[in-house]
Each structure stands twice: as structure tokens, then as C-alpha cells.
């Protein structure tokens, strides 16, 4: 009966090993398909999107007046109109010669790096808000100091294209007077920027609204207060103060009520592109400006889209503007040089080392050692399945962690068998003793591993997650399988 029990456990282990290392094949459309999930790999094993940002060498056309001052919004004027006004067109480089310095290249690289870190944080915040999986992220960045080229490697996933389209944005923020084009606020006035959610229950639209929240510095807050005080929509009785109206203000006359509505507007621009033109309903004293992005919706996909859009803007504003304008010159998916053949070599090496170590175990402990070997193989198989089904992203660090877990389990089994041979206590007592001794020494390692799981850098989190599942498995599996096997054998 006891032999049958041992045989059943061993057969179960063999079955799991077959499933894990060979797979379960099913006939699908006349071809055999493995139904066991494969591993998910990180950027260093799967491949990465390689982006080369090159400083813009293009030119832009500006219009100057007779005194040599730049005239805004004159691009649409015809040559005749320009001549009439005494304006002249001039082509100037998008990046002036004097800004193309190593310091500015380095500053641009630093800003891109900060943006990438912020994108990672914000994406995970949004995903958490919408109950989506955490985005595993890491990047490589390098600067070619002689040319100013910036080379970036990022993982290929749903967010890659959005990152590529935003990463090279200059991020120049301006609030200007819609009429005079006077610059009222710039990036210098921004303290921080993020996204907020609100709810709307108006008749036209109801649901969640996404806001781009811009928080200004102390000076910026003062400027905003002044602007919001000045750029307002006012309604006055005609004739009362008509002569006092600013010549730049827009005015409409409501003849029926004999009222004049005067609206002085500001224009918000990012990278010289007009985002919005508006006036203020009330004076803003909080130093915060909240702009709604999109319309209210109850569809979480739509709201997430707006949140991603607002988040991109918030990141660009929060991190600051780049001194140099860059263009995406290269944007390619490049597979890793760690090919499947190399991974197979690593796998076979781990198996070969394990086989040698397991032979040592059999030689040292005979039958108990052999049962320990079966137990070890079972753990390795279940561990392999857990990694695949818990969606752990395997990086090179993760592969090292697999090796470390197997070593830790080997040490445990060896310790357990050694204690069992020396002790006259029951298997259960030896198990308790081994567990206490083994895990008390691992507490700092476990603290580190759990903390690694929460780090927003995929190589570390991959290592942490693999180790976490490994340690949990060592703790649960050995008490159930190894201890049971040896307990049955002892009774035998």
C-alpha cells in the first residue's frame, strides 16, 4: 500500500514534468498545437523598438516687419499683402546654431529620460485606475555627443507607438494674448502637471470627465490670477463704457437687450500648436488650471483614451521643454541577439548541472536521495508552469532567478535529507525543524524579493516575481510532496 502511495506521487510528478517540459498537443486544423502557455519575455530577450532621434535640420519661415521684429500669424498673408504691409519672409533653421551644444544635447537626453520614467509611472497609474495589468517597462538610452543623436530602446507593446509620437516633442508651453500675441506664461511658470478625473451629469453628456491639471509656481499663480482677472467675458449696457473697451477685445452687440458682450481671450499653445482659445469665467486664485480633455463618457475605453491623451500632455508639461527640436529618424522593431538557440543552450545547461547535483543527492542519501530527486524534478516542473501562467515577464535577471530558486530548493532538500539521516525524530518533526532553520535565514532575502516585485523597472520586478513564486513554491511544495514522500518511505 505504501509502495503504491509513493508510486502514485512519483507518477503524478512524471505527468506534471511531461506537461511542463514537453507540452500538451492537440490537433488544430490538421496541425499539432501545444496548449501549454509559453513564457512571456522582456525586452532584452524578445526584442525592442529602436528609436533614433536626430536633431531637426529643417527650416521654418517667419515673417518680419520693417523694423525686423517677428510678426505672428502672418503665414497666411499673400506676397502682395506682405509687400503692402512692408513685411518680409525669412527662412531660419528650426534649431539655431547657438543652441546646438553638448550641454543642450545632454539636457535633451535627460528630459527624454525623465519623460520615459514618468510615462511608466503614469501608465501604471492609469492602468490601475482601469483595472488593467501593470505595464512592464524599461529602456536603454544613449547619446552620440558629436552629432546630438539620441538612441532609445523601449519594449514593444500597446504603448510603444504613443511613446514614439510623444517622446521627441519639444514641449514648449505658452499662454498668449489671442489678439496681441503677447506671451503671458511659459514652461517656467509650471510647477507640476497631472491628470484628474471628475464626473459630469449634464443633460448633454454624463459620465467620467478627464482633466489636465496644471499647477503653477508661486509667480505663475500670481500671473494666472492676473490673467484670469483680465481675460474675462463681460456684459455691459451699450453706451455705458463703450469708449473704455480695449481695442484688442472682441465685442458683440445684442441690439434687443441693448447689451454689449466683451470677450478678451487667451490662447494656449504647446509646441506652437494652438490647443485652445478661451476666456475666464472667474478669477483663478488657486494657482491651478484644469482643462477638460474630451467629453464625459461612461465607456471606460473612451475615458482611458482621453486619460492617455491628457497624460501625454501632462508628462510633456511636467518634465519641461527640450532645448532642441528632434525628429524621429529611425523607428524599428529589432529582435534580441539572444536567440531561441541561446535560450535552449541555457536551458540544457541548467538541466545538465541539475542532473549532476541530483546524482550527488542519490549517491549521498540512496533511496531517500532518489525520492528527493523526484521531488526536485516535480518542483522544477510546477515552477516552470507557475511562471508561465502567472504572466511573469522573463528578463535575463528572471532567468538567473530561476537558477537561484533551483539552487535554493536543492539546498533545502539536501538539508532536509541530511537532518533526516542524523535525526531520530519523526519526519514531520524534522520537516518543522528544517523549515524553521531554513526560512529564518531567508527573511532578509524574502524582504528584498517582495520589494523587488514592486519596483517599476522590469528587470528587477522580473527577478523579484520569479524569486517570489519560487520561494512560495519551495515553502508549500516541500511540506506537501517531499515531506510526504519521505514520511511514507520512513513508515515503509
Amino acid at each position, binding site marked *: 500500500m505504501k509502495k503504491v502511495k509513493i508510486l502514485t506521487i512519483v507518477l503524478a510528478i512524471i505527468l506534471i514534468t511531461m506537461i511542463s517540459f514537453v507540452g500538451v498537443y492537440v490537433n488544430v486544423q490538421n496541425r499539432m498545437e501545444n496548449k501549454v502557455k509559453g513564457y512571456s519575455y522582456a525586452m*532584452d530577450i524578445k*526584442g525592442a523598438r529602436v528609436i533614433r532621434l536626430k536633431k531637426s535640420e529643417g527650416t521654418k519661415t517667419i515673417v518680419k516687419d520693417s523694423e525686423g521684429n517677428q510678426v505672428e500669424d502672418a503665414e497666411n498673408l499673400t506676397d502682395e499683402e506682405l509687400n503692402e504691409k512692408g513685411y518680409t519672409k525669412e527662412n531660419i533653421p528650426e534649431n539655431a546654431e547657438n543652441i546646438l551644444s553638448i550641454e543642450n544635447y545632454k539636457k535633451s537626453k535627460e528630459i527624454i529620460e525623465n519623460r520615459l520614467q514618468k510615462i511608466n509611472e503614469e501608465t501604471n497609474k492609469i492602468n490601475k485606475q482601469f483595472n488593467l495589468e501593470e505595464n512592464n517597462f*524599461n529602456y*536603454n*538610452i*544613449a*547619446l*552620440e*555627443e558629436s*552629432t546630438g*543623436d539620441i*538612441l532609445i530602446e523601449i519594449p514593444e507593446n500597446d504603448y510603444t507607438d504613443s511613446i514614439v509620437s510623444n517622446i521627441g516633442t519639444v514641449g514648449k508651453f505658452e499662454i498668449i494674448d489671442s489678439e496681441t500675441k503677447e506671451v503671458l506664461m511659459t514652461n517656467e511658470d509650471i510647477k507640476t502637471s497631472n491628470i484628474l478625473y471628475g464626473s459630469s451629469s449634464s443633460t448633454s453628456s454624463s459620465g467620467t470627465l478627464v482633466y489636465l491639471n496644471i499647477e503653477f509656481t508661486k509667480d505663475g499663480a500670481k500671473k494666472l490670477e492676473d490673467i484670469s482677472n483680465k481675460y474675462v467675458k463681460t456684459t455691459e449696457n451699450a453706451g455705458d463704457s463703450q469708449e473704455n473697451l480695449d481695442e484688442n477685445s472682441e465685442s458683440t452687440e445684442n441690439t434687443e437687450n441693448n447689451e454689449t458682450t466683451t470677450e478678451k481671450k487667451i490662447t494656449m499653445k504647446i509646441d506652437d500648436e494652438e490647443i485652445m482659445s478661451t476666456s475666464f469665467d472667474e478669477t483663478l486664485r488657486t494657482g491651478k488650471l484644469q482643462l477638460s480633455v474630451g467629453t464625459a463618457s461612461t465607456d471606460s475605453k473612451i475615458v482611458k483614451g482621453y486619460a492617455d491623451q491628457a497624460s501625454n500632455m501632462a508628462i510633456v508639461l511636467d518634465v519641461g521643454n527640450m532645448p532642441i527640436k528632434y525628429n524621429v529618424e529611425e523607428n*524599428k*522593431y*529589432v*529582435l*534580441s*541577439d539572444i*536567440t531561441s538557440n541561446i535560450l535552449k543552450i541555457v536551458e540544457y545547461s541548467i538541466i545538465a548541472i541539475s542532473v549532476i547535483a541530483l546524482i550527488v543527492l542519490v549517491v549521498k542519501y540512496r533511496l531517500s536521495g532518489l525520492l528527493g530527486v523526484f521531488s526536485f524534478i516535480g518542483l522544477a516542473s510546477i515552477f516552470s508552469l507557475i511562471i508561465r501562467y502567472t504572466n511573469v515577464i522573463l528578463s*535575463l*535577471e528572471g*532567468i*538567473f532567478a530561476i537558477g*537561484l530558486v533551483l539552487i535554493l530548493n536543492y539546498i533545502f532538500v539536501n538539508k532536509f535529507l541530511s537532518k533526516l539521516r542524523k535525526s531520530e525524530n519523526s519526519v514531520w518533526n524534522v520537516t518543522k525543524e528544517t523549515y524553521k532553520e531554513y526560512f*529564518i*535565514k*531567508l*527573511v*532578509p*532575502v524574502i*524582504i*528584498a*524579493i517582495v*520589494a*523587488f516585485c514592486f*519596483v517599476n*523597472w522590469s*528587470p*528587477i520586478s522580473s*527577478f523579484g516575481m520569479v524569486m517570489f513564486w519560487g520561494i512560495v513554491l519551495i515553502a508549500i511544495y516541500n511540506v506537501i510532496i517531499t515531506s510526504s514522500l519521505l514520511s511514507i518511505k520512513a513508515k515503509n
Partner: protein
Amino acid sequence: MKNISKKQKIILALIAIVIIVGTIVIYTVGFNFDLKYQDTKKLELNIQKDFNISDIKQITDEIFQGQKVIIQKVEVYEDAVSIITKDISNEQKTQLVSKVNEKYGISIDNENTTIGTIPHTRGRDIIKPYIAPLVIITIIILAYLSIRYYRLNSAKVVIKSIGIILLLQILLFSIIAITRIPVGRLTVPMVIIVYLLTLWGITTKFEKNLLNVNNEEKKKN
């Protein structure tokens, strides 16, 4: 002062020598960075059909004799190849294009194939993302150790732990510098594993000391 055995003295002397030599090597020659992190040259060839990396490797081995080369497939269809190596001369480029054309029966234009440059990645950029998490985690662990082993004198436990963690990391980097092991993708996993093994070793030692203290107290009572 605790007596140090002859064996321990030899080990400490060896560690000191390795660290001194390693520091000199780092400050004079520097680390030997992996090709992936060096200033390199790149050639991209659009083969437009399936190919084996091993076949391309055979060609690059002939042309860049002894030079380390990274070969990667490009784009989702995997029909283009990127060849990265320390330096590529125009002559080598011509040879490479001609051999690839010959091998796959295609006609890549040598004139239109340009040699690209890839800037090096700074060592500090490689390790930067790991510093803050490792420092924070170490602080948490030190707090745990100081509480768990308060009977061994918390201050001593903390100082010893910091000393051993730092010493072993410096030793690891010294060995990497002296042996000229390339600093690259395998360096960080090595650092993490040494860090975890150090924690394990420290705890094992403190547990042993704690057991001795407890036993001595039991004897006294």
C-alpha cells in the same frame, strides 16, 4: 578584540589585494564594456527573405575576423538583418554586401548601404535605475536585522551588515575589472545575486551568534 586566525588573515589579505588592484584597474584602464554598450558601427541589410543568423554569422566571421559581432533580425517579418560591430570599413561593407547578395541571390546596392553609428551607453545610465530600489530595500532590511538581532547590539549588526554588503560588491566589481569580464547585461543579475547571497550569509552568521548568546544565557541561568 576578536582573534583572527591565520586562515582568515590570508583571506582578508587576498580580498584587500584584489580590491586595491581592481580599483587601480578601474581608474586606469576602466571596465571592459560589452559590445552592446560601446561606440559601435551598424550595417542594416534588407534580405527580403527568411535567413538564418548562423549563416550571417559565418559571413561576418570571415569578414570581421576575431571581431565581436552582434547579429539581430529586424522588423516583424524578420527579413532584414542588423550587423553591429566595433568598426566597419568601406571595404568590409562591400565584402559583406557582396557575400550576402551571393548567398541569398539578391542584389542589395552597396552604394545605398550606409554604415550607421551607435553611441555608447554610459555605465552610470546602466546602473542608475537599480541604485534607489537597492538602497531603499537595504535600509528596510537593516531595520529588520537591527530588531531581530538586538541582543547582538543593533548598531554593530547594522555597521557589520553595511560593511559586508559594500565589501562584497566592491570585491565583485574588482574581480570584473581585473578579469576583464565584459560589463553588460549579465552584470546586473550578478550584482543582485551576490547581494542576496550576502544577505543570506549575514543572516546565517547572526543566527549562529544569537544561538550562542542564548545558549550562554541558558547556561548561566
